[in-house]
């Protein structure tokens, strides 16, 4: 699976993914990158293992007392539910979109419902919780990406084609992590149209509860 990925996820993001403290859009980014990158997947599994050890080593005063009939109630739940079958891997080696993205799009590239946003650039916003946003971007070969003023953390991963900014070249699976101080103008490689996944902290919404999680992520 792993291609020649040069720009990876960092420890803070992988640890937050394992801890479960990222907004849905960022979870989608991480899951998509891990689908393409074996080394980050191995790191993510180590962070899961650390979570397991933290759980296992909880101090006595952190462990909660159960209800008196807790075990019996759980056994009753078990009898009521079906036994899962052995897991069958769902993979499609020909697809451009990794599985987590196909689940959101409802298929591979042909299922994306693009909306033009000017200069030949198209986008498709994916349905995630409102604390952050996820969208697919289509940038014609050789075209500059639309100016996206960064208000917080934005991550962009290449799915098809490539793009280049002042310093670096990003190809399939590479992730660019940008924060609010960053000003740059990425341009799609001249040889092929570029398709990316971009996730960002959304501007504040009216629902006060949800944006708090986005703000948390902002300052990781």
């Amino acid at each position, binding site marked *: *699976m792993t291609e020649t990925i040069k720009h990876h996820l960092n420890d803070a993001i992988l640890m937050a993914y394992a801890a479960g403290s990222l907004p849905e859009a960022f979870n989608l980014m991480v899951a998509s990158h891990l689908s393409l990158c074996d080394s980050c997947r191995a790191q993510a599994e180590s962070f899961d*293992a650390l979570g397991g050890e933290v759980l296992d080593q909880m101090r006595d005063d952190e462990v909660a007392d159960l209800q008196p009939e807790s075990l019996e109630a759980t056994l009753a739940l078990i009898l009521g539910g079906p036994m899962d079958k052995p897991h069958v891997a769902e993979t499609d080696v020909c697809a451009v979109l990794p599985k987590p993205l196909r689940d959101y799009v409802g298929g591979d590239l042909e299922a994306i419902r693009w909306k033009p946003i000017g200069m030949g650039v198209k986008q498709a916003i994916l349905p995630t*919780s409102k604390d952050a946003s996820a969208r697919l971007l289509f940038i014609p070969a050789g075209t500059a990406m639309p100016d996206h003023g960064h208000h917080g953390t934005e991550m962009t991963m290449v799915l098809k084609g490539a793009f280049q900014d002042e310093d670096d070249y990003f190809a399939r699976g590479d992730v660019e992590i940008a924060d609010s101080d960053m000003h740059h103008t990425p341009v799609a490689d001249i040889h092929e149209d570029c398709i990316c996944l971009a996730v960002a902290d959304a501007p504040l919404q009216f629902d006060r509860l949800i944006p708090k999680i986005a703000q948390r992520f902002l300052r990781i």
Partner: protein
Amino acid sequence: MLWVEHVARIRDDQDTQAFAELFAHFAPRVKGFLMKSGADASLAEECAQDVMATLWHKSHQFDPARASVATWIFTIARNRRIDLIRRQRRPEPEDLTWGPEEEPDQEDVLTLQQETEILGAALAELPDAQRELIEKAYFGDLTHSEIAAETGLPLGTIKSRIRLALDRLRHAMK
């Protein structure tokens, strides 16, 4: 190899004794974990029972060459927390093409389980200041900046302590 045998007995023989032993160790931890993440006692109880029932129903999917039982239960509890408390989907990475359908190699199982023990020992030996921050990151559903607000430590100190802790753990795993 702690607990691996228990899961095999549940999977192969529907062994309620093995389940009761696993339950006695892990269910109070899962409940405590959920309460630290903001669930009240009754929701945490309900979720903990649900997590342990999932362990039984999904016992066929447990792959001891890829995770310890504690890791596996942690991931089930974490996903349930996102699902029930936060009401969000949690996208998971694509399955690897060489899925866990076949019986895992015993040597791989042993290696993974030994590595987990080393990781556990290294975590237990971390200086308190580092260990506490790791626990907060996993339990409290907190980012570094929220830990800063809670502990009064500067953000830079927290980041460097977590980095030091991860360096130590990685060193122990070499």
